[in-house]
């Protein structure tokens, strides 16, 4: 009996599994590159159909890479917290603390002090969440909500004491930051200066040609190489660094083991409470960095500056299946939609709806082929709605509010249609006391 049900050897499994493709056996970097290539090809087709060349212009990608940074920070904050098993609804509150501390330190000592102070402010929020959920075992959702309610109050109180009446500060904003953060453009490929010499800008030249696909790839390249604030570079670097720390170090293994099975980690001598504190506090610091990024970007703390980016980070975390590469992709998609709305002209935004319709149709065909009829029907309905809006926007113009909801709709769709592929940390959300056997 056991002999017949035991899984066949791996090679045999591969031979009989029809869904297995060559892609699965290729090196790990091939798949994301293919996705990016395919995505750009679709974008390129859409911009040509919709007559919106600026949709994939280099400037759009430059804005998107910048807009992506705070979301990346927030999502990585959520990653560290949730990998030790603590659900972090309080990311938004921690980001708010980050913006305030960054605004305060930046006003006194400039943007680099703001980075440090922002991380510190966010870490305070993380420490509070850890204190309440780990030491007292309060429900994590409740604690997160409480932090989101408290953070705006605390920062407003601090502003009333430390900003009102000083320089151009007020109850809702800090005095302007002294100095700006440096920006960097790669020489030789994106036209940055090299020891004072203005190098040529081949990517910019290709971008301007607006050739099918080639120019779009160049434009994406410009996004990653042109006018990058150092804080943005920090965000982009933190993605692989987080991945390395969590998956390639002993420390990371311990952190993750607590999010999966705390009792097992405990039995092997991992200090569960302490590691939970560390994970949640690092998470808070990262969310705080996201806040600092926002404050440094406009060189001041402003009330409500975060505008839900903590929740977008949470969305990117889920979209990205609790992994850094996925987080980068999710944050990138959300930021791309945002940067489109900020650009003049409605054509690129309208093109976005055409894109949504095309994706829905492709998805519907794919689902239909797999005999998943209800899902296919759902995809057709969503595609139809997107197309209807595309048509109506021709007459009435587009409303940016509709684009504003993109990240949230995308996340809901991913949760709805791909939830079986999502794998959150197993022990997430459950308070654990020493001695528990779960």
């Amino acid at each position, binding site marked *: 009996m056991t002999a017949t049900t035991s899984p066949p050897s791996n090679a045999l499994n591969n031979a009989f599994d029809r869904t297995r493709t060559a892609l699965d056996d290729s090196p790990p970097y091939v798949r994301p590159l293919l996705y990016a290539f395919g995505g750009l090809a679709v974008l390129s087709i859409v911009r040509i159909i919709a007559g919106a060349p600026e949709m994939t212009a280099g400037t759009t990608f430059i804005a998107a890479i910048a807009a992506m940074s705070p979301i990346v920070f927030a999502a990585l904050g959520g990653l560290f917290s949730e990998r030790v098993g603590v*659900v972090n*609804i309080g990311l938004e509150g921690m980001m708010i603390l980050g913006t305030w501390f960054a605004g305060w330190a930046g006003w006194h000592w400039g943007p680099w002090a703001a980075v440090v102070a922002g991380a510190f402010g966010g870490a305070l929020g993380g420490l*509070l969440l850890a204190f*309440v959920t780990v030491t*007292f*075992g*309060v*429900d994590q*959702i*409740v*604690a997160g*909500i*409480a*932090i*989101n*309610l*408290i953070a*705006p*109050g*605390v920062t*407003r*109180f601090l*502003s*009333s*004491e430390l900003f009102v009446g000083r320089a151009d500060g007020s*109850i809702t904003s800090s005095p302007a930051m002294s100095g700006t953060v440096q920006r960097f453009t790669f020489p030789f490929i994106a036209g940055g200066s090299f020891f004072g010499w203005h190098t040529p800008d081949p990517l910019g030249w290709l971008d301007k040609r607006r050739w099918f696909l080639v120019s779009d790839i160049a434009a994406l390249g410009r996004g990653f190489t042109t006018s990058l604030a150092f804080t943005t570079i920090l965000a982009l670097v933190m993605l692989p660094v987080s991945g390395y720390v969590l998956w390639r170090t002993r420390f990371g293994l311990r952190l993750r083991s607590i999010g999966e099975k705390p009792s097992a980690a405990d039995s092997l001598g991992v200090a569960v409470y302490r590691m939970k504190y560390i994970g949640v506090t690092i998470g808070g610091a990262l969310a705080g960095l996201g806040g600092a990024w926002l404050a440094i970007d406009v060189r001041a703390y402003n009330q409500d500056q975060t505008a*839900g980016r903590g*929740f977008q980070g*949470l*969305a990117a975390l*889920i979209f990205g299946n609790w992994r850094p590469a996925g987080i980068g992709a999710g944050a990138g998609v959300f930021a791309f939609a945002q940067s489109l709305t900020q650009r003049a002209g409605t054509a690129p935004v309208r093109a976005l709806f055409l894109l949504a319709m095309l994706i829905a149709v492709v998805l519907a065909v794919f689902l239909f082929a797999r005999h998943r009829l209800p899902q296919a029907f759902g995809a057709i309905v969503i595609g139809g709605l997107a197309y209807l809006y595309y048509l109506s926007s021709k007459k*009435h113009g587009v*409303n940016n*509010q*509709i684009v*504003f*909801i993109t*990240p*949230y*709709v995308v*996340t*809901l769709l991913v*949760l*709805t249609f791909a*939830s079986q592929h999502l794998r959150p940390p197993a022990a997430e959300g459950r308070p654990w006391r020493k001695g528990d056997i779960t």
Partner: protein
Amino acid sequence: MRRRLVYALAAPVLAGVAALTISAIALLAIGENPLDAFRAMWESVNSADSVTTIINTAAPYYVMGLAVALSFKMGLFNIGADGQFRLGAVVAAAAGAAVTLPAPIHVLYVILVAMAVAGAYAAIPGALKVTRGVNEVVATIMLNFIATGITAYLIATHFRDPKIPEQAQTKPLPKSAWLPALNRPLRWFGYHLPSQTVMQGFLIVAILTGVGFFLLVYKTRFGFDLRTSGANPRAALSSGVNPNAMIMKTIILSGALAGLAGMGPLLSDLHLYGDIFPTALGFTGIAVALLGRNHPGGIALAAVVWAGIEQAARGLPAVGVPQEIGKILQGTLLLAAVVAFEVVRRYGQAAQVRDAAAKAEALHRNVPLGMAAT
């Protein structure tokens, strides 16, 4: 029984003391005398006008607290009450302004539209949870933002009042859709409010909702199933409760109540939906439900305390203290309360175990060994 009462009171008292202490420390840190500040806060609530303001503010908080508490009671986290109430309010405002009806029916019509829309919107996370296993916390957070986008879109386009092009808001509701003020009925009972003070009629709605909530949750079969599902889902399942149906019913009802809460500002105060409409009511409802321990009585107290702190803080600038200390007080009170409830719960559980052990031991000692077997 006596011990249970002590435990029930210990947590709120502890939380209150902790919140006041932390606020006092914050005040000391900025060089203010906490006693002066607290006296100014007390004076700011100690008038008929202030009490009326507090009650007017607390009434929608209360209904929103009930909406959230209903879902919490069965272990569902309806974080989306905020989006549900706003979507309900904007559609109800537009629908109410579009028709002419006699007064009582018009009010009822607006309320029903709001509850239906908010309930339907709440059905989305419910359906996602039941059919696809999507976590309702994440789904409702996303739906809050989606509701923000949709309402902003609606008041900017289809529902916009064409007479006021510079403001994105709906047409004002006609007088027939206003909830009457309670000043006159109060006069019949001998309470004379100052002439500028208006006791809003939504108070009656809030009280009726509270009574209805109590009867539904504690006196009906549905309420029993709801509480069982929250306390022990497995026990509920084996007693024949259909968990999916329970989730759908609860979240839709919770959403409908959230929609009702939005009727406070709409029917009793602003009479239109626009940028001035309160936005964070749903989150206040969560705070109030947590503070009130999901009990209709506790939530009522919590709503009054929450609104009371807001009113009290308005007296602070007069003595040179930032008004924001009120927010600190609210926040620390909430956090201290959830911690205190958990600590007291655990302490009570440990005490129960100790008691039971002591009783068993006493029994064992008093009964001769041979007798225990018979």
